[in-house]
């Protein structure tokens, strides 16, 4: 394991957050602490008995308002390997139709004295709103186009593992930046750790007003590939074509898809990453997705360690009072 070799600084600052809502509000120090904690948890999954008692007696609820297989499974397995009890709830996107708000749902769960709520919601800001009102710790498992902090943390963990560092690396994120929570979390995290981030995609999928992001923007995929140490591809949703954001998927593939020809112009040791699920033949050619530069499956493996670390860290702060009520 090259990640966080003894030569690197040891983080001594304690974790003080009840919740993990996004990387926007984390300091570089806090991000390094999560990555370091994850690296010790990765070892657990390599044992024959893959379980530690760290969260015994704690209850984790996976509350998913949006369909997800890999993130939900990853959190579930992470909680189980920490010996926590875990409940999976798949809820309707908005229960307002029944006259019940998301907060009503949360208050009902809180009545069971749960410790950690892992929340995925199609609407930005829901985990933040719940965290303000709940005693339980809240972990954001993806909210609308806002943030997906554990995905970015596992991406950074994987880069660290493969490259030994993040500072000074050229990371290009290619695809639907405008609608991507993964892109946002990665931009905040990577720039804090000193990477040079390039965002690439058609203008219709690139947010306006990027001045404060600290990232380079290009519409030319060749420019994004050249000199990059990491290529992070994002999934192109079919809905984007329906909304006229791109003319069609074929046009996207021709102009922005990563295939062997384009990859040949990249650095030989470039990492190819994708948060999944892949749209094979659109943003990523199968040959590249399954090729030697791809670390897509290692991202999944590392996701488990990162989520164990996050659950462990917030659990240590669980029981602290929620933010003071403003209303």
């Amino acid at each position, binding site marked *: 394991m090259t990640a966080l070799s003894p030569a690197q600084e040891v983080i001594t600052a304690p974790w003080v957050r009840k919740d993990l809502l996004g990387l*926007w509000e984390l300091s570089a120090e806090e991000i390094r602490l999560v990555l370091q904690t994850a690296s010790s948890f990765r070892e657990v999954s390599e044992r024959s008995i893959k379980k530690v008692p760290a969260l015994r007696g704690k209850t984790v609820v996976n509350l998913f308002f949006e369909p997800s297989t890999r993130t939900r499974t990853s959190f579930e397995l992470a909680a189980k390997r920490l010996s926590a009890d875990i409940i999976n709830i798949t809820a309707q996107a*908005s229960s*307002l139709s029944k006259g019940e*708000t*998301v*907060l009503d749902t949360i208050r009902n769960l809180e009545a069971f004295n749960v410790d950690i709520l892992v929340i995925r*919601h*199609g*609407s*930005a*800001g*829901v985990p*933040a*709103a719940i965290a303000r009102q709940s005693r339980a710790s809240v972990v954001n498992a993806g*909210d*609308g*186009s*806002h*943030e997906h902090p554990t995905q970015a943390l596992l991406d950074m963990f994987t880069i660290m593992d493969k490259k030994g560092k993040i500072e000074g690396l050229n990371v290009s994120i290619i695809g639907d930046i405008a609608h991507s*929570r993964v892109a*946002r979390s990665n931009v905040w995290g990577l720039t804090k750790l000193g990477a040079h981030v390039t965002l690439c995609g058609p203008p219709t999928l690139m*947010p*306006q*007003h*990027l*001045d*404060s992001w600290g990232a380079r923007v290009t519409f030319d995929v060749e420019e994004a590939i050249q000199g990059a140490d990491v290529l992070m591809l994002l999934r192109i949703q079919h809905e984007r074509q329906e909304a006229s954001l791109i003319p069609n998927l074929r046009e996207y593939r021709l102009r922005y898809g990563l295939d062997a020809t384009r990859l040949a112009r990249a650095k030989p040791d470039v990492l190819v990453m994708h948060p999944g699920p892949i749209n094979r033949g659109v943003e990523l050619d199968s040959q590249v997705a399954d090729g030697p530069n791809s670390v897509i499956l290692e991202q999944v493996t590392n996701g488990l360690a990162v989520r164990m670390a996050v659950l462990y860290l917030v659990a240590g702060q669980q029981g602290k009072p929620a933010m003071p009520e*403003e*209303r």
Partner: protein
Amino acid sequence: MSKLVIAGGRVIDPANKTDGLFDVVIEAGKIAEVRPTASGSKSGRNGTSADTSVIDARGRIVAPGFIDLHTHLREPGREDKETIDTGLHAAVRGGFTTVCAMPNTEPAIDEPGVVEQVRQAARRAGLADVQVIGAVTIGRQGKELTSFGELFDAGCVGLSDDGSPVSDSLLMRRALEYARIFNRPIIQHAEDLKLVVGGVMHEGAVSTRLGLRGMPSAAESVIVARDLALAELTGGWLHVAHISCAQTVDLVRQAKRRGIRVTCEVTPHHLALTDEAIGDFDTRAKVNPPLRTDADRLALIEALADGTIDAIATDHAPHTDWEKDAEFDAAPFGISGLETALAVCVTELIEAKRLTWPQLIERMSCSPAKIARLPVGTFSVGSQADVVILDPDCRGTVQPHTFCSKGRNTPFAGRELTGAVVATIAQGRTVFQSSHARAEAHR
């Protein structure tokens, strides 16, 4: 006949270009006289007789009662959000003696029966006067024009599909054209529905960071540009509701120079706040049109000062707490504005030295009265005695739980603001007195 004298205050009556120390004398619900305050008067109680009561207004500002061109009273249909009665209590607490009720009720105010229903409920409440804005199209569906003549005969002061725009260009042309018979405005909620699809806040740096769908300023300005061309074409009277961005300000300014018949209004919240108020997904700052950038805010203030913007209107939009507690995408748009309008304007416009007191009073009383073509907003002798008495220096914290409105949805909660309504007099009758003023009166 009993007499009421409001004595010793700084009387600001822009309609008559009055600004100075005067006594306002009210008889039989009408303004009887505005006379210079007698010098040497100590308590303001000089000349008191048995049938005369005196309000000591020294240190206060005395002005014509405010007229709100844009109020959502929610009744009929959504009495859980507001009733005409609670809305009017909020209005008089805010210094408003006339409010114009928007027609996006359930059912919509699109026929004379509903107009009469609203006016009757208002008369029962007996606080501020309610004027009605009827719908432009049946059911606010944007398909077929309502019976303009019947609605105006029933007392409507303008027509609007507010909440929704009149999107169809031809229908908008016909509405502007036909309303010329009545010399009344078509009030447009200017929003290109295609450009804002799914949007929940201003499209800018904050929406980009939060990952919330944006509503670009162009969604407002393209409709205003179109409507100004239609107003020029038809000679109809266009009133643009709640303008929110610098581009719209420029369009209206140019149109006025060219003699196009256009008026417009701005809300206190667009004068005070920007998209930063959404902060960490605060649904209380979710409003349509959205809070925009500081450059837009400053352009609105400048336009209000130079007269490009005619009036301040609250767009009072009360909602229940549980609706606003929903996820940001699902929470309804709107701010409960009647009870904070004055203090927000004093803080942002007077204290910040952007407007003078007479300018502010004009934009809140006589100018909106002209747009609604109502004989109020003035202290001319014989006019209806609608008066607001203000404490210009009083500082207080906005506490939504003390609101008379059922809607406690305000991004100003907890903010310290300057300026307070001390008393509101409608048709010669005191309909609101602040607790502070009541305590003083009993001393």
